């Protein structure tokens, strides 16, 4: 029993040592924030919630010095932001298709009336 406890304790120490070598993901956080900003300039605010939640978790983990979790969340947030950006663009294009289709229908109607 005592042997087991010693083993657990020593494992925990090893575990902590392992994590301590995970550096603070400062660069990844910078990239993530940049991706979110870029998505915002593309009008993706409506799609950015997942990215912002993940970024917040990353920042909380960073504050708690859990650098590994911070990096994982930051990496997720970056891709969430990049997806948000293309979703926003896709939505804009879809609206454009609908808009021109409606214009064409109106033009057809007018053309039918004038003939």
């Amino acid at each position, binding site marked *: 029993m005592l042997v087991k406890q010693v083993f657990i304790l020593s494992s925990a120490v090893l575990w902590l040592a392992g994590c301590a070598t995970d550096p603070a993901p400062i660069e990844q956080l910078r990239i993530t924030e940049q991706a979110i900003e870029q998505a915002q300039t593309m009008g993706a605010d409506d799609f950015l919630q997942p990215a912002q939640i993940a970024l917040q978790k990353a920042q909380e983990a960073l504050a708690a010095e859990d650098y590994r979790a911070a990096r994982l969340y930051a990496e997720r947030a970056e891709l969430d932001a990049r*997806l948000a950006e293309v979703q926003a663009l896709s939505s804009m294009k879809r609206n454009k*298709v609908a808009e021109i289709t409606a214009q064409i229908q109106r033009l057809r109607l007018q053309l039918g009336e004038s003939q």
Partner: protein
Amino acid sequence: MSTCSVRRIIVTGALLSVVGLTGCAHYTEAEQALQQADELFNSIKDDSQVLASAPKDVLRAGESLQRAEQLSGYLGSTEDVQHFAYLSQQYAHIAQERSQIASYQQQIEQLRIQRERLQLALREARLMSVQQQGQWLEEQMISLATQDAERGLVLTLNDMLFDSGRADLKPAANRTVLKLVQFLQMNGQRTVRIEGYSDSDGDVQENLQLSKDRAQAVADTLVDLGVDVKRLQVMGYGDAFPIAENATERGRAQNRRVEIVFSDEVGRLAPERE
């Protein structure tokens, strides 16, 4: 990452074996995430439009998936497997979205062409539907025709509208002829004399006949399009009244022509040429 996580895997494995393997539920979760990512990746990796629109994203989705698969063999890698499976799915979603954007863009371009065509048609239809139609046509005809001192308003259909040696009107003449028909319909009192001319090459009698046949071809077309035959006179002048030198091909081409002479508003035509 590598040394750290390897060490962590070993440590986690040791810890888990000691504490009592509570990780089974997580292991299933990781498997599930991996399976979902795998299915999604398989659905895009052979889609040619997705590949064309987002090759890099497809590649990264594949790399992340591979990473997740490699890690899934290790005990205690649940979090990493889920992480890379998630990244793979996000890349796949981005690729799908880019493909969708490309498809929308294509649609937009086609729709724009269609819209432009309709706008043009509508503008023309409006122009024609208003009362000014007659006047607009008159302006068009006058812009096409020239004012001749003896004969009044004269519209020239040049050699370009006939094949050499032939009397049939080429399709290129349709626009001018259609305008002429509309003009005559809007101006019911006006009559026309259709005069054929040739160059001086070849037999005089044949030239006279060809010039007359060309004038007749124009008259027939007008009749086909609803102009009363009584409003049309047809004349062939052969190589008489050249408008250019017959010495050059260019000059001869100019001389091969049909001229439409318009009467005034009450149907009075200038006398025939002699």
